[in-house]
Protein backbone atom coordinates (compact mmCIF):
# COMPACT_ATOMS: atom_id res chain seq x y z
CA UNK A 1 0.00 0.00 0.00
CA UNK A 2 1.42 3.41 -0.91
CA UNK A 3 2.39 5.42 2.11
CA UNK A 4 4.34 8.46 3.13
CA UNK A 5 7.12 6.17 4.25
CA UNK A 6 7.60 4.71 0.78
CA UNK A 7 7.42 8.22 -0.62
CA UNK A 8 10.09 9.34 1.81
CA UNK A 9 12.24 6.35 1.07
CA UNK A 10 11.93 6.88 -2.64
CA UNK A 11 12.95 10.51 -2.34
CA UNK A 12 15.87 9.73 -0.11
CA UNK A 13 16.92 6.99 -2.45
CA UNK A 14 16.56 9.39 -5.33
CA UNK A 15 18.67 11.89 -3.46
CA UNK A 16 21.38 9.33 -3.02
CA UNK A 17 21.60 7.64 -6.36
CA UNK A 18 18.35 6.57 -7.98
CA UNK A 19 17.67 7.86 -11.50
CA UNK A 20 14.85 10.37 -11.67
CA UNK A 21 12.50 8.24 -13.74
CA UNK A 22 12.78 5.39 -11.30
CA UNK A 23 12.24 7.73 -8.36
CA UNK A 24 9.14 9.14 -10.01
CA UNK A 25 7.79 5.67 -10.63
CA UNK A 26 8.25 4.82 -6.97
CA UNK A 27 6.56 7.93 -5.62
CA UNK A 28 3.06 7.01 -4.55
CA UNK A 29 -0.07 8.99 -3.89
CA UNK A 30 -1.21 10.95 -1.97
CA UNK A 31 1.82 13.18 -2.41
CA UNK A 32 3.57 12.42 -5.66
CA UNK A 33 0.40 12.55 -7.73
CA UNK A 34 0.57 16.33 -7.44
CA UNK A 35 4.13 16.64 -8.67
CA UNK A 36 5.25 17.09 -12.24
CA UNK A 37 8.52 15.47 -13.33
CA UNK A 38 10.17 18.92 -13.25
CA UNK A 39 8.99 19.49 -9.69
CA UNK A 40 10.14 16.09 -8.59
CA UNK A 41 13.49 16.83 -10.19
CA UNK A 42 13.69 20.02 -8.13
CA UNK A 43 12.95 18.09 -4.94
CA UNK A 44 15.53 15.47 -5.80
CA UNK A 45 18.08 18.22 -6.42
CA UNK A 46 17.22 19.79 -3.07
CA UNK A 47 17.60 16.46 -1.31
CA UNK A 48 20.92 15.87 -3.04
CA UNK A 49 22.12 19.33 -2.04
CA UNK A 50 21.48 18.77 1.66
CA UNK A 51 22.51 15.10 1.69
CA UNK A 52 26.08 15.77 2.94
CA UNK A 53 24.79 17.89 5.85
CA UNK A 54 22.20 15.25 6.68
CA UNK A 55 24.85 12.56 6.63
CA UNK A 56 27.04 14.61 8.96
CA UNK A 57 24.08 15.27 11.22
CA UNK A 58 23.35 11.56 11.45
CA UNK A 59 26.89 11.06 12.71
CA UNK A 60 26.53 13.57 15.58
CA UNK A 61 27.25 11.46 18.67
CA UNK A 62 24.25 10.47 20.76
CA UNK A 63 23.90 7.79 23.38
CA UNK A 64 20.90 5.63 24.19
CA UNK A 65 20.13 7.85 27.19
CA UNK A 66 19.97 11.06 25.13
CA UNK A 67 16.22 11.65 25.14
CA UNK A 68 14.45 14.08 22.83
CA UNK A 69 13.59 17.54 24.14
CA UNK A 70 10.24 18.75 22.86
CA UNK A 71 10.54 21.81 25.19
Amino acid sequence: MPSRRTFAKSLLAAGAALPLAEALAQCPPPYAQHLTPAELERIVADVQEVAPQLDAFRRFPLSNSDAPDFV
Partner: protein
Amino acid sequence: MIDAFSSIEDLGRALRAKEVSAVELARFYIERLAKYGDRLGAVVTITRDRAMAEAEAADRALASGDNRPLLGIPYGVKDLLATKGIPTTWGAEPYRNQVFDYDATVVERLTNAGAVLVAKLAMVELAGGFGYNNADASFTGPGRTPWNTGFWSGGSSSGPGAAVAAALVPFAIGSETSGSILTPAAFSGITGLRPTYGAVSRHGAMALCWTLDKIGPMARSAADCNTVFGAIVGEDPRDPTTARVFPSGRANWVASSVMARAANQRKARIGLVKGSWDHVQPAVRDNFLASVEVLRAQGHTLSEVTYPDLPYGPTISLIVDAEGASAFEDILQDGRAKQLRAVADRTGGFASAATLAIDYLRAQRVRAKIRQALLRLFEEVDLVVSPTRATVAYPVGPNFDEVYRDFRSGPAVIPSMNLLGAPCVALPNGFGENGLPTSIQLNAAPAHDTLAVNVAIHYQSATRHHLAKPAGF
Protein backbone atom coordinates in the same frame (compact mmCIF):
# COMPACT_ATOMS: atom_id res chain seq x y z
CA MET B 1 -3.19 66.99 15.17
CA ILE B 2 -2.18 63.37 15.76
CA ASP B 3 1.45 62.32 15.29
CA ALA B 4 1.15 58.84 13.77
CA PHE B 5 4.57 57.93 15.16
CA SER B 6 3.56 58.64 18.78
CA SER B 7 4.36 56.08 21.44
CA ILE B 8 1.62 54.05 23.09
CA GLU B 9 2.21 56.06 26.27
CA ASP B 10 1.75 59.38 24.45
CA LEU B 11 -1.35 58.19 22.61
CA GLY B 12 -2.82 56.97 25.89
CA ARG B 13 -2.09 60.32 27.51
CA ALA B 14 -3.84 62.13 24.63
CA LEU B 15 -6.86 59.84 24.94
CA ARG B 16 -7.15 60.34 28.69
CA ALA B 17 -6.73 64.12 28.27
CA LYS B 18 -9.54 63.99 25.69
CA GLU B 19 -7.30 65.60 23.06
CA VAL B 20 -8.49 62.84 20.77
CA SER B 21 -11.16 60.16 21.07
CA ALA B 22 -10.61 56.46 20.50
CA VAL B 23 -12.96 56.61 17.51
CA GLU B 24 -10.96 59.46 15.98
CA LEU B 25 -7.72 57.62 16.61
CA ALA B 26 -9.03 54.42 15.03
CA ARG B 27 -10.28 56.36 11.97
CA PHE B 28 -6.89 58.10 11.70
CA TYR B 29 -4.92 54.84 11.54
CA ILE B 30 -7.50 53.16 9.30
CA GLU B 31 -7.03 56.02 6.83
CA ARG B 32 -3.28 55.47 6.93
CA LEU B 33 -3.71 51.73 6.42
CA ALA B 34 -5.97 52.40 3.41
CA LYS B 35 -3.58 55.02 1.99
CA TYR B 36 -0.24 53.23 2.40
CA GLY B 37 -1.06 49.58 3.04
CA ASP B 38 -1.00 48.39 -0.57
CA ARG B 39 2.18 50.32 -1.37
CA LEU B 40 3.92 48.39 1.39
CA GLY B 41 2.16 45.05 0.82
CA ALA B 42 1.38 45.28 4.52
CA VAL B 43 -2.35 44.78 4.87
CA VAL B 44 -4.72 41.89 4.22
CA THR B 45 -7.93 43.17 5.82
CA ILE B 46 -8.87 46.46 7.45
CA THR B 47 -11.22 45.52 10.28
CA ARG B 48 -13.26 48.72 10.12
CA ASP B 49 -16.54 47.56 11.72
CA ARG B 50 -14.87 45.77 14.59
CA ALA B 51 -12.53 48.72 15.13
CA MET B 52 -15.39 51.21 15.36
CA ALA B 53 -17.28 49.04 17.85
CA GLU B 54 -14.18 48.55 20.00
CA ALA B 55 -13.27 52.25 19.79
CA GLU B 56 -16.75 53.31 20.87
CA ALA B 57 -16.50 50.95 23.83
CA ALA B 58 -13.08 52.38 24.64
CA ASP B 59 -14.47 55.93 24.60
CA ARG B 60 -17.16 54.90 27.06
CA ALA B 61 -14.54 53.35 29.33
CA LEU B 62 -12.32 56.43 29.06
CA ALA B 63 -15.25 58.63 30.03
CA SER B 64 -15.67 56.57 33.18
CA GLY B 65 -12.03 57.16 34.17
CA ASP B 66 -10.60 53.83 33.02
CA ASN B 67 -6.85 54.30 32.53
CA ARG B 68 -5.57 50.95 31.28
CA PRO B 69 -2.44 51.56 29.16
CA LEU B 70 -3.81 50.02 25.94
CA LEU B 71 -7.32 51.40 26.23
CA GLY B 72 -8.28 52.91 22.86
CA ILE B 73 -4.92 52.13 21.23
CA PRO B 74 -5.24 50.77 17.65
CA TYR B 75 -3.21 47.75 16.58
CA GLY B 76 -2.84 45.12 13.88
CA VAL B 77 -2.15 41.40 14.01
CA LYS B 78 -0.28 39.11 11.68
CA ASP B 79 -2.92 37.29 9.68
CA LEU B 80 -2.27 33.98 11.38
CA LEU B 81 -4.25 34.90 14.48
CA ALA B 82 -7.89 33.89 14.46
CA THR B 83 -10.41 36.73 14.61
CA LYS B 84 -14.08 35.94 14.89
CA GLY B 85 -15.97 36.47 11.64
CA ILE B 86 -13.03 38.08 9.82
CA PRO B 87 -10.93 36.15 7.25
CA THR B 88 -7.71 34.67 8.62
CA THR B 89 -5.69 33.78 5.55
CA TRP B 90 -2.31 32.62 6.88
CA GLY B 91 -0.93 34.62 3.93
CA ALA B 92 -1.66 31.69 1.64
CA GLU B 93 -3.97 31.26 -1.33
CA PRO B 94 -5.34 27.88 -0.16
CA TYR B 95 -6.63 29.51 3.04
CA ARG B 96 -7.68 32.84 1.55
CA ASN B 97 -11.35 32.45 2.48
CA GLN B 98 -10.84 30.83 5.88
CA VAL B 99 -12.97 32.32 8.67
CA PHE B 100 -12.93 31.27 12.32
CA ASP B 101 -15.78 31.75 14.78
CA TYR B 102 -13.55 32.72 17.69
CA ASP B 103 -10.69 35.03 18.62
CA ALA B 104 -7.17 33.82 19.34
CA THR B 105 -6.25 34.19 23.01
CA VAL B 106 -3.84 37.03 22.19
CA VAL B 107 -6.59 38.95 20.40
CA GLU B 108 -9.01 38.20 23.22
CA ARG B 109 -6.53 39.55 25.77
CA LEU B 110 -5.87 42.70 23.78
CA THR B 111 -9.62 43.22 23.46
CA ASN B 112 -9.95 42.81 27.22
CA ALA B 113 -7.15 45.38 27.61
CA GLY B 114 -9.24 47.84 25.59
CA ALA B 115 -7.04 47.88 22.46
CA VAL B 116 -8.71 48.42 19.09
CA LEU B 117 -8.07 45.95 16.27
CA VAL B 118 -7.80 47.89 13.01
CA ALA B 119 -6.14 45.41 10.64
CA LYS B 120 -5.10 41.89 9.81
CA LEU B 121 -1.56 42.31 8.52
CA ALA B 122 0.26 40.53 5.72
CA MET B 123 2.65 37.65 6.26
CA VAL B 124 4.78 35.20 4.33
CA GLU B 125 2.54 32.28 3.37
CA LEU B 126 2.36 29.65 6.11
CA ALA B 127 4.95 31.68 8.04
CA GLY B 128 7.63 30.49 5.66
CA GLY B 129 7.42 26.87 6.64
CA PHE B 130 7.81 25.48 3.15
CA GLY B 131 11.19 27.10 2.46
CA TYR B 132 10.49 30.30 0.51
CA ASN B 133 13.53 31.93 -1.05
CA ASN B 134 12.08 35.20 -2.32
CA ALA B 135 10.31 38.24 -0.86
CA ASP B 136 7.30 37.57 -3.09
CA ALA B 137 5.91 34.77 -0.96
CA SER B 138 2.41 35.82 0.01
CA PHE B 139 -0.82 36.09 -1.94
CA THR B 140 -0.71 39.80 -1.08
CA GLY B 141 2.72 40.17 -2.72
CA PRO B 142 6.02 41.11 -1.10
CA GLY B 143 6.12 43.19 2.06
CA ARG B 144 8.17 46.33 1.51
CA THR B 145 10.16 48.27 4.07
CA PRO B 146 9.10 51.94 4.18
CA TRP B 147 12.74 53.03 4.34
CA ASN B 148 13.18 52.02 0.71
CA THR B 149 10.26 50.28 -0.94
CA GLY B 150 12.46 48.46 -3.42
CA PHE B 151 13.47 46.25 -0.50
CA TRP B 152 11.73 43.61 1.62
CA SER B 153 10.25 44.32 5.05
CA GLY B 154 11.46 40.92 6.28
CA GLY B 155 9.56 37.76 7.11
CA SER B 156 7.57 36.07 8.01
CA SER B 157 5.88 38.90 9.98
CA SER B 158 6.27 41.13 6.92
CA GLY B 159 3.07 43.15 7.39
CA PRO B 160 3.62 43.91 11.09
CA GLY B 161 7.18 45.05 10.28
CA ALA B 162 6.18 47.40 7.46
CA ALA B 163 2.99 48.66 9.12
CA VAL B 164 4.66 49.56 12.40
CA ALA B 165 7.65 51.16 10.67
CA ALA B 166 5.39 53.39 8.56
CA ALA B 167 3.14 54.15 11.55
CA LEU B 168 0.08 52.56 9.99
CA VAL B 169 -0.49 51.10 13.46
CA PRO B 170 1.10 51.99 16.82
CA PHE B 171 1.93 48.32 17.44
CA ALA B 172 1.37 44.88 16.00
CA ILE B 173 1.51 41.23 16.97
CA GLY B 174 3.90 38.96 15.09
CA SER B 175 5.10 35.41 15.49
CA GLU B 176 8.43 33.64 15.31
CA THR B 177 9.46 30.07 14.67
CA SER B 178 13.04 30.98 13.77
CA GLY B 179 13.57 34.67 12.99
CA SER B 180 10.10 35.80 11.95
CA ILE B 181 9.88 38.62 14.49
CA LEU B 182 13.57 39.52 14.57
CA THR B 183 14.09 39.69 10.80
CA PRO B 184 11.20 42.04 10.01
CA ALA B 185 12.10 44.12 13.06
CA ALA B 186 15.64 44.44 11.66
CA PHE B 187 14.68 45.05 8.02
CA SER B 188 11.91 47.49 8.93
CA GLY B 189 13.86 49.42 11.58
CA ILE B 190 11.53 48.71 14.50
CA THR B 191 11.73 46.93 17.85
CA GLY B 192 10.61 43.32 18.20
CA LEU B 193 10.21 41.19 21.30
CA ARG B 194 10.36 37.44 20.89
CA PRO B 195 9.16 36.13 24.26
CA THR B 196 10.27 32.96 25.99
CA TYR B 197 8.68 29.89 24.42
CA GLY B 198 5.45 29.33 26.31
CA ALA B 199 5.16 32.86 27.67
CA VAL B 200 2.32 33.80 25.32
CA SER B 201 -0.58 31.55 24.39
CA ARG B 202 -0.72 30.28 20.82
CA HIS B 203 -4.35 29.25 21.02
CA GLY B 204 -5.97 30.43 17.80
CA ALA B 205 -2.65 31.01 16.07
CA MET B 206 -1.71 29.06 12.94
CA ALA B 207 0.66 26.29 13.93
CA LEU B 208 3.76 25.85 11.83
CA CYS B 209 5.92 24.10 14.39
CA TRP B 210 4.46 23.23 17.77
CA THR B 211 7.79 22.99 19.56
CA LEU B 212 9.13 26.31 18.25
CA ASP B 213 6.28 28.76 17.54
CA LYS B 214 6.07 31.91 19.67
CA ILE B 215 3.86 35.02 19.58
CA GLY B 216 5.25 38.47 20.38
CA PRO B 217 4.82 42.23 20.06
CA MET B 218 6.39 44.50 17.44
CA ALA B 219 6.47 48.25 18.01
CA ARG B 220 8.74 51.24 17.57
CA SER B 221 10.22 51.03 21.06
CA ALA B 222 11.08 48.41 23.65
CA ALA B 223 8.87 50.23 26.15
CA ASP B 224 5.87 49.83 23.84
CA CYS B 225 6.69 46.17 23.19
CA ASN B 226 6.79 45.59 26.93
CA THR B 227 3.46 47.32 27.51
CA VAL B 228 1.84 45.02 24.94
CA PHE B 229 3.68 42.02 26.35
CA GLY B 230 2.14 42.77 29.74
CA ALA B 231 -1.32 42.40 28.23
CA ILE B 232 -0.71 39.10 26.45
CA VAL B 233 1.74 37.17 28.67
CA GLY B 234 0.48 34.45 30.96
CA GLU B 235 -1.07 31.04 31.33
CA ASP B 236 -3.88 29.87 29.10
CA PRO B 237 -5.48 26.46 29.65
CA ARG B 238 -6.09 26.29 25.89
CA ASP B 239 -2.30 26.27 25.28
CA PRO B 240 -0.73 23.87 27.80
CA THR B 241 2.81 25.05 26.99
CA THR B 242 2.03 28.30 28.81
CA ALA B 243 1.62 26.43 32.08
CA ARG B 244 4.41 23.95 31.55
CA VAL B 245 7.26 26.11 30.34
CA PHE B 246 6.86 29.58 31.80
CA PRO B 247 4.10 29.67 34.44
CA SER B 248 5.51 32.75 36.17
CA GLY B 249 5.50 34.90 33.03
CA ARG B 250 2.74 37.22 34.19
CA ALA B 251 4.08 37.50 37.72
CA ASN B 252 7.52 38.47 36.42
CA TRP B 253 6.27 41.27 34.18
CA VAL B 254 7.22 44.86 35.15
CA ALA B 255 5.56 47.98 33.70
CA SER B 256 7.65 49.99 31.25
CA SER B 257 7.26 53.19 33.28
CA VAL B 258 8.70 51.42 36.32
CA MET B 259 11.49 49.76 34.38
CA ALA B 260 12.46 53.04 32.72
CA ARG B 261 13.39 54.71 36.00
CA ALA B 262 17.14 55.23 36.29
CA ALA B 263 17.16 53.52 39.68
CA ASN B 264 15.67 50.39 38.11
CA GLN B 265 18.25 50.05 35.37
CA ARG B 266 19.75 46.58 35.61
CA LYS B 267 23.40 45.95 34.95
CA ALA B 268 24.05 42.85 32.91
CA ARG B 269 26.97 40.64 32.02
CA ILE B 270 26.84 40.89 28.25
CA GLY B 271 28.44 38.26 26.04
CA LEU B 272 29.33 39.46 22.56
CA VAL B 273 29.25 36.50 20.21
CA LYS B 274 32.74 36.03 18.72
CA GLY B 275 32.64 35.95 14.94
CA SER B 276 29.21 37.53 14.67
CA TRP B 277 30.43 40.85 13.24
CA ASP B 278 33.47 39.70 11.25
CA HIS B 279 31.76 38.98 7.93
CA VAL B 280 28.73 41.28 8.02
CA GLN B 281 28.17 44.41 5.94
CA PRO B 282 30.46 47.28 7.05
CA ALA B 283 27.58 49.43 8.33
CA VAL B 284 26.14 46.48 10.25
CA ARG B 285 29.53 46.01 11.93
CA ASP B 286 30.09 49.74 12.59
CA ASN B 287 26.61 50.23 14.04
CA PHE B 288 26.97 47.09 16.15
CA LEU B 289 30.27 48.27 17.62
CA ALA B 290 28.79 51.71 18.29
CA SER B 291 25.88 50.02 20.11
CA VAL B 292 28.35 48.01 22.16
CA GLU B 293 29.97 51.25 23.31
CA VAL B 294 26.58 52.59 24.41
CA LEU B 295 26.02 49.43 26.44
CA ARG B 296 29.51 49.71 27.92
CA ALA B 297 28.92 53.34 28.87
CA GLN B 298 25.72 52.30 30.65
CA GLY B 299 27.72 50.16 33.05
CA HIS B 300 27.18 46.69 31.66
CA THR B 301 30.07 44.24 31.83
CA LEU B 302 31.08 43.20 28.33
CA SER B 303 33.11 40.22 27.22
CA GLU B 304 33.47 38.12 24.08
CA VAL B 305 32.03 34.62 24.23
CA THR B 306 32.77 31.63 22.04
CA TYR B 307 29.56 30.16 20.72
CA PRO B 308 29.20 26.38 21.12
CA ASP B 309 29.90 24.62 17.82
CA LEU B 310 26.77 22.50 17.34
CA PRO B 311 24.60 21.59 14.30
CA TYR B 312 21.97 24.29 14.79
CA GLY B 313 20.99 24.54 11.13
CA PRO B 314 20.19 20.88 10.41
CA THR B 315 18.51 20.52 13.80
CA ILE B 316 16.04 23.35 13.32
CA SER B 317 15.48 22.52 9.64
CA LEU B 318 14.51 18.94 10.37
CA ILE B 319 12.16 20.00 13.17
CA VAL B 320 10.45 22.67 11.07
CA ASP B 321 10.26 20.37 8.04
CA ALA B 322 8.66 17.49 9.93
CA GLU B 323 6.26 19.53 12.05
CA GLY B 324 5.41 21.86 9.16
CA ALA B 325 4.60 19.01 6.80
CA SER B 326 2.38 17.53 9.48
CA ALA B 327 0.69 20.86 10.27
CA PHE B 328 -0.19 21.39 6.60
CA GLU B 329 -0.81 17.78 5.67
CA ASP B 330 -4.21 18.73 4.26
CA ILE B 331 -2.87 20.88 1.41
CA LEU B 332 -0.11 18.39 0.65
CA GLN B 333 -2.56 15.52 0.39
CA ASP B 334 -5.05 17.34 -1.83
CA GLY B 335 -2.41 19.21 -3.80
CA ARG B 336 -3.46 22.76 -2.86
CA ALA B 337 0.13 23.42 -1.82
CA LYS B 338 0.71 23.95 -5.52
CA GLN B 339 -1.34 27.17 -5.24
CA LEU B 340 1.26 28.82 -3.04
CA ARG B 341 2.88 31.99 -4.34
CA ALA B 342 6.61 31.30 -4.00
CA VAL B 343 8.00 28.73 -6.41
CA ALA B 344 10.04 27.10 -3.63
CA ASP B 345 6.93 26.77 -1.45
CA ARG B 346 5.03 24.82 -4.12
CA THR B 347 7.34 21.84 -3.73
CA GLY B 348 8.99 22.52 -0.38
CA GLY B 349 6.20 20.96 1.65
CA PHE B 350 6.31 17.78 -0.41
CA ALA B 351 10.04 17.51 0.21
CA SER B 352 9.45 18.13 3.93
CA ALA B 353 6.91 15.31 3.98
CA ALA B 354 9.80 13.01 3.15
CA THR B 355 11.49 13.70 6.49
CA LEU B 356 12.04 10.43 8.28
CA ALA B 357 10.72 10.06 11.81
CA ILE B 358 14.11 8.86 12.98
CA ASP B 359 15.73 12.07 11.70
CA TYR B 360 13.09 14.21 13.40
CA LEU B 361 13.62 12.43 16.71
CA ARG B 362 17.37 12.71 16.31
CA ALA B 363 16.93 16.45 15.84
CA GLN B 364 14.92 16.72 19.06
CA ARG B 365 17.58 14.67 20.85
CA VAL B 366 20.36 16.92 19.52
CA ARG B 367 18.22 19.86 20.58
CA ALA B 368 18.55 18.70 24.18
CA LYS B 369 22.35 18.89 23.82
CA ILE B 370 22.03 22.35 22.29
CA ARG B 371 19.85 23.54 25.16
CA GLN B 372 22.34 22.23 27.73
CA ALA B 373 25.24 24.00 26.00
CA LEU B 374 23.41 27.31 25.68
CA LEU B 375 22.18 27.20 29.28
CA ARG B 376 25.82 26.74 30.33
CA LEU B 377 26.63 29.85 28.29
CA PHE B 378 23.96 31.73 30.24
CA GLU B 379 25.73 30.78 33.46
CA GLU B 380 28.66 32.92 32.26
CA VAL B 381 26.68 35.87 30.90
CA ASP B 382 23.19 37.34 31.29
CA LEU B 383 22.71 38.45 27.70
CA VAL B 384 24.03 37.06 24.43
CA VAL B 385 24.39 39.89 21.93
CA SER B 386 25.15 40.06 18.20
CA PRO B 387 23.99 41.90 15.07
CA THR B 388 20.43 40.75 14.32
CA ARG B 389 21.15 40.23 10.61
CA ALA B 390 24.41 40.25 8.65
CA THR B 391 22.97 42.60 6.04
CA VAL B 392 20.31 45.19 5.54
CA ALA B 393 17.04 44.14 3.87
CA TYR B 394 17.08 42.00 0.73
CA PRO B 395 15.91 43.61 -2.50
CA VAL B 396 12.47 42.69 -3.79
CA GLY B 397 12.94 40.58 -6.93
CA PRO B 398 16.00 38.34 -6.78
CA ASN B 399 16.09 35.14 -4.78
CA PHE B 400 17.72 35.55 -1.37
CA ASP B 401 20.69 33.37 -2.29
CA GLU B 402 21.50 35.58 -5.29
CA VAL B 403 22.32 38.67 -3.21
CA TYR B 404 24.77 39.70 -0.48
CA ARG B 405 26.90 36.64 -1.19
CA ASP B 406 29.98 38.19 0.44
CA PHE B 407 28.37 38.47 3.86
CA ARG B 408 27.37 35.98 6.54
CA SER B 409 26.30 35.99 10.17
CA GLY B 410 28.86 33.68 11.73
CA PRO B 411 27.39 31.64 14.61
CA ALA B 412 23.72 30.83 14.04
CA VAL B 413 22.38 32.89 16.92
CA ILE B 414 18.76 33.16 15.73
CA PRO B 415 18.16 29.42 15.08
CA SER B 416 20.01 28.34 18.22
CA MET B 417 18.20 30.75 20.53
CA ASN B 418 14.90 29.61 19.05
CA LEU B 419 15.86 26.01 19.76
CA LEU B 420 16.51 27.07 23.35
CA GLY B 421 13.20 28.96 23.56
CA ALA B 422 15.04 32.07 24.71
CA PRO B 423 13.59 35.58 24.73
CA CYS B 424 15.14 38.29 22.59
CA VAL B 425 14.72 41.97 21.83
CA ALA B 426 15.83 43.26 18.41
CA LEU B 427 16.57 46.98 18.34
CA PRO B 428 17.27 49.37 15.47
CA ASN B 429 20.80 50.75 15.75
CA GLY B 430 21.39 52.85 12.66
CA PHE B 431 21.36 52.68 8.88
CA GLY B 432 23.40 51.02 6.17
CA GLU B 433 23.29 50.45 2.42
CA ASN B 434 20.49 52.11 0.47
CA GLY B 435 19.24 53.95 3.53
CA LEU B 436 18.11 50.71 5.12
CA PRO B 437 18.12 50.05 8.88
CA THR B 438 20.43 47.78 10.86
CA SER B 439 19.71 46.05 14.16
CA ILE B 440 21.20 44.51 17.29
CA GLN B 441 19.74 41.51 19.17
CA LEU B 442 19.77 41.00 22.95
CA ASN B 443 19.07 37.38 23.95
CA ALA B 444 18.39 36.35 27.55
CA ALA B 445 18.00 32.96 29.20
CA PRO B 446 14.49 31.48 29.07
CA ALA B 447 12.10 33.25 31.47
CA HIS B 448 14.38 36.29 31.68
CA ASP B 449 12.41 38.39 29.20
CA THR B 450 12.33 41.26 31.67
CA LEU B 451 16.11 41.56 31.75
CA ALA B 452 16.39 41.84 27.95
CA VAL B 453 13.57 44.40 27.91
CA ASN B 454 15.11 46.39 30.76
CA VAL B 455 18.46 46.69 28.97
CA ALA B 456 16.67 47.54 25.71
CA ILE B 457 14.55 50.28 27.28
CA HIS B 458 17.60 51.93 28.82
CA TYR B 459 19.58 51.53 25.58
CA GLN B 460 16.81 53.40 23.78
CA SER B 461 16.79 56.09 26.47
CA ALA B 462 20.37 56.86 25.41
CA THR B 463 19.89 56.59 21.62
CA ARG B 464 17.49 57.92 19.00
CA HIS B 465 17.54 55.23 16.29
CA HIS B 466 14.03 54.03 17.22
CA LEU B 467 12.67 57.56 16.80
CA ALA B 468 13.71 57.89 13.14
CA LYS B 469 10.80 58.21 10.69
CA PRO B 470 10.82 57.00 7.08
CA ALA B 471 10.24 59.78 4.55
CA GLY B 472 6.93 59.91 2.71
CA PHE B 473 4.75 58.36 5.39
